[in-house]
């Protein structure tokens, strides 16, 4: 059975990583073919494996057996006889856990990573980087080996994360993904803004990761107490309803806080408020990186984490309410920041944050209504494809123009038709227009949220925010498309305008097809738990509900508004020149100054404390150590004052001492003899 070989799925790209790191400089395309080949092979295997496990679930959403149903597991212990890490009674092993939810993401990740790897072959060129000798000649540095090595490591880690059978294993791969993100955001490390963006990404996600780590450590101990430390962090333990109930009874606060910790890790990784500040800056990396890591896969890892451990979250509903609220607020706020931005990649970055908020909303709604969970995951799948496509199209534009400021675009439809039309497909999808995929998942989500409102009024608020955000989304996405592809070209580089290489166009086309196809999964996924059993709002209900038409209307209004301001006739009037953004627009362009606040706080508090402790260390602690030495010195100096070298003084001392000695002896004699001793 193919599932026995599922471990190859992450192993192939990881092996490619090692090869490219060690030998890449000597290989053709600096190891690009090895990396891409391994990724494509792994992707094919992933899709096939996903297909095989698609129908593995036989129980319903909150099933009697307490699992998600059957899962296939395989661990190092099975294969090699020893586990990966044994420490005391704890055993943490690496392995594979395949069930319906894994399958959901596995297939998508496999296709996306394969596609983007192929796109990279055409997109990544040898780059000249920063350093200039005194005579002005640049040093030619070819970054391809680094790129393909990091890409392979990333894909291996992402697949390892999705397939992980142990929470610690998942954490390890989670972190490795973050490392690749850091390395690839800082791909052009000579550029100060890229280096700063990479640092920011690492540190902000590290803060989230530390909460994840705290949760992980706590779960290891409390589940270890319940069922024995040897299986404490295995997924089969953590997802077993009976075990969870036992732990919830014994350690309610610890369980709640650790689950919250897992969510906070997801907040960091998926760039939700308040840890969202790194993602817009992450656009400093190559666009393929933005597409793969920061749109399609890594940022989804946070969503997947919550989905994977949903039984745990379910046991502490207040965390799920938090998830829903954070998601909704993030979705709205991020959309407002996208509305005014002129950098095409940054608009897409804010859009990603916003859409991730939708997914978290869906999962949070799952506290009340099972369908919310399904809708959230459904949106994850759809979004992966159309967002990747949006970024790849943006990349194609950047490939031609070396510039991402939309004020210099315009009318590109004539010069780059493939890019334009595929991007339109993605834009329609993200705006929720049927028959594109985004319509199905977004409206499903809204419907489930509204339904959940009956359980808890909070979800009406969530629904309202989501609806408004849908309108904003349609507005800013079509604003983007109109500004870029319609009207007249406003820039200077007309001769370079063309669609990309065949690698790029092929991938664009395939992904565009997907934006149409994945939506219909809702009809055909009858074997998969998520849709057959979970959706409360069936497709039939969806088409007939008033809420669907309301959201379509809101989206349509958004598109219309975008047309009036940024359509070919009016666009020139509404472009604020560089540097002149003021007022509300200015605030939103500067992202509500959140980043500045973080910098000031870190500088004042953390660095302030650091400088204080450093001064304390040097002037108090070390000073007192030296003071002991100085004291000895002083004693010596004092003592040596008596060494005058004069015989008379020494004679005086001798005589005084003798006198004292005699007196003492006489007293002792009187004392002892007097007492008859």
């Amino acid at each position: 059975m193919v599932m026995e070989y599922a471990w190859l799925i992450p192993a192939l790209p990881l092996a490619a990583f090692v090869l490219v790191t060690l030998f890449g400089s000597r290989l053709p395309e600096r190891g690009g073919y090895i990396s891409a080949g391994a990724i494509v092979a792994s992707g094919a295997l992933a899709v096939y494996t996903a297909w095989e496990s698609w129908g593995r679930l036989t129980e319903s959403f909150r099933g009697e057996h307490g699992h998600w149903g059957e899962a296939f597991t395989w661990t190092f212990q099975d294969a090699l006889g020893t586990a990966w890490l044994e420490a005391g009674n704890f055993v943490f092993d690496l392995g594979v856990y395949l069930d319906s939810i894994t399958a959901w993401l596995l297939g998508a990740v496999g296709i996306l990573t394969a596609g983007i790897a192929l796109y990279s072959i055409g997109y990544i060129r040898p780059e000249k980087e920063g350093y200039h000798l005194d005579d002005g000649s640049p040093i030619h540095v070819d970054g391809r080996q680094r790129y393909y090595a990091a890409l392979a490591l990333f894909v291996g880690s992402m697949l390892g994360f999705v397939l992980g059978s142990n929470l610690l294993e998942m954490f390890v791969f989670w972190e490795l993904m973050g490392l690749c993100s850091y390395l690839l955001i800082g791909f052009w490390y000579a550029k100060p803004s890229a280096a700063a963006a990479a640092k920011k990404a690492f540190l902000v996600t590290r803060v989230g990761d530390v909460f994840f780590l705290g949760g992980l450590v706590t779960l290891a101990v409390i589940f270890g107490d319940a069922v024995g430390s040897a299986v404490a962090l295995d997924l089969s333990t953590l997802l077993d309803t009976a075990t969870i109930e036992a732990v919830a009874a014994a350690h309610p606060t610890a369980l709640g806080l650790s689950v919250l910790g897992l969510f906070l890790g997801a907040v960091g990784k998926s760039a939700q408020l308040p840890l969202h500040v790194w993602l817009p800056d992450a656009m400093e990396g190559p666009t393929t990186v933005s597409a793969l890591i920061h749109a399609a896969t890594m940022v989804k890892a946070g969503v997947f984490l919550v989905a994977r451990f949903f039984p745990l979250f379910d046991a502490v509903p207040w965390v799920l309410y938090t998830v829903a609220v954070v998601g909704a607020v993030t979705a709205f706020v991020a959309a407002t920041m996208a509305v005014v931005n002129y950098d095409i990649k940054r608009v897409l970055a804010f859009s990603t944050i916003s859409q991730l908020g939708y997914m978290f909303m869906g999962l949070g709604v799952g506290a009340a209504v099972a369908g919310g969970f399904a809708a959230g995951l459904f949106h994850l799948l759809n979004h992966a494809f159309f967002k990747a496509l949006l970024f790849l199209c943006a990349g194609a534009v950047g490939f031609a123009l070396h510039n991402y400021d939309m004020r210099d675009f315009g009318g590109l439809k004539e010069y780059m038709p493939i890019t334009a039309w595929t991007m339109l497909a993605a834009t329609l999808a993200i705006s929720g227009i049927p028959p594109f995929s985004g319509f199905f998942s977004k409206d499903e989500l809204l419907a489930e949220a509204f339904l959940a409102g009956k359980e808890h009024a909070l979800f009406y608020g969530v629904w309202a925010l989501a609806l408004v955000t849908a309108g904003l989304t349609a507005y800013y996405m079509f604003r983007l498309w109109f500004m870029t592809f319609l009207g007249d070209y406003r820039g200077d580089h007309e001769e370079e305008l063309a669609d990309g290489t065949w690698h790029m166009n092929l991938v664009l086309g395939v992904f565009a097809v997907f934006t149409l196809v994945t939506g219909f999964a809702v009809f055909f996924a009858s074997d998969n738990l998520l849709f057959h059993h979970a959706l409360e709002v069936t497709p039939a209900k969806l088409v007939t509900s008033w809420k669907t038409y309301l959201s379509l209307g809101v989206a349509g209004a958004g598109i219309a508004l975008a047309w009036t301001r940024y359509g070919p006739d009016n666009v020139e009037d509404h472009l604020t020149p560089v540097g002149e953004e003021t007022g509300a627009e200015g605030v939103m362009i500067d992202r509500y100054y959140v980043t500045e606040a973080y910098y000031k706080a870190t500088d004042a508090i953390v660095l302030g404390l650091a400088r204080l402790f450093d001064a304390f260390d040097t002037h108090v602690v070390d000073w007192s150590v030296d003071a002991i030495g100085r004291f000895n010195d002083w004693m010596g100096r004092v003592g040596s004052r008596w060494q005058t070298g004069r015989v008379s003084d020494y004679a005086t001392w001798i005589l005084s001492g003798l006198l004292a000695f005699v007196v003492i002896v006489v007293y002792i004699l009187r004392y002892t003899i007097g007492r008859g001793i």
Partner: protein
Amino acid sequence: MTVPWLSIAIFTPLVGAVLTMLAGRRQIGRVVSLIASVVPLGIGAGVLARTPGIDDFVLKESIAWVSTDSLTITYTMALDGLSAPLFALTALLVAAAILFSWEETKRPLSFFALLLVLETSVLGVFAALDLFVFYVFWEFVLIPMFFLIAIWGGAHRRYAATKFFVYTFLASLVMLLGFMGMYFGLPDGVPATFNFLELQQYTAGFSVELQILLFVALLVGFAVKMPVVPVHTWLPWAHVEAPTAGSVLLAGVLLKMGAYGLIRFAIGAFPFAAVKLAPLLLVIGIVSILYAALVCLAQNDLKRMVAFSSISHMGVAMLGIATLNEIGFMGAIYMLIAHGLLSPLAFMMCGSIQHGWGTREIDKLGGIMQKTPTMGTFTMAAFIGSLGFPGFAGFIAEIAVLVGTYQAFGWIVIFPLLGVVLTAGYYIWAIQRALHGELTAEHADSAHEMPFYETAAVGVLTFFAIVYGVWPALLTEHINPFVEGLLSTVGVI
């Protein structure tokens, strides 16, 4: 007639030192010293390669050395799950240090010979099971280290070497008093001896006050060596002023001697006192982690930053020891090995940067990755590994200590978690300021890449740091039986 492999391993470097001094020319001397340093590595690796893991003492040798009416000292040496990895690590680091200093021009033969003498002393420390012999080797370590710092060191080398020597020596005297207390505290009728294996059977029966007193005496000596806050201030001086090979060995093994002694002798002999004083160790550990991490953030000299991070990591080890549970202890011991690979790696990179760019100060560097990518990459690897990132050995240690901390102390785990963030902060910030960005470093035109011997030394350490991060079972199979044995003694109380 069994071959005394252990003593051969311990004293070969000493013989090598003599031969090196006689070699006459640097080219011969350095090869001789490299060979001599690798012999114990072969023996140590052979011990580690055995499966299943070491669960008892191996390569044991015991000879009665002094047996008079008033004094009984035996020469008892052996390796077990705790000391075997440290033994092999020592040999590896000395070999790497010799390799890194391949082109040393200032009195090279003396330099290599001193490194070898140091190797013998440290190997003896890890193998000794008689308190007197342990003490002799322990103190003897100070001598070659003093000369290495005082002659081949930086601008303030005299001050740093003297401070290092006197500070640790004083602390060791307190430790010696503790040893003597153990010797004289034996109950009447039991033959007095310094042999730890025999002493250990009786020390748990000492009166409570005596146990605590002696534990504290031993703790003083070991705490200063580790070092932990507040007795740490000798370390930044010693590390910064020492030559790279000196810093490598100082950070890699000398610091571990303190933790080793604490685990084997202090806790091994006085488990009751250990349980009573665990809260003290907890506080010391946490303060070390956070205090040192904050001070790191304020540093401008890369080497001084790495020095303080050593203090922070030994705080993690102390924390693991304080948990007194199996996973925490395993993490503490694993940290000794992991830090023993990653910290020397970081110091080597500081040395490379100094050689290549002429300075170690962050505000005088900037963008050096552009001209010296290999150096930059290894520095990134060293720093990222040191911050406990998965894939490197440090992660295994940290996760184990964290789980152990929660298991033993609950919510207190927040503090080491804060340390994790701070550690990432200073390392990543340093990478950004020194390696990335525009090339603002001074003397960029005369900067040069790492020579092959530096790359070789650094590559070896990186390799092992990754191997033990990716396949921890290689070490845990030796450490776990030791921890189980030790903690069953503690559990008995």
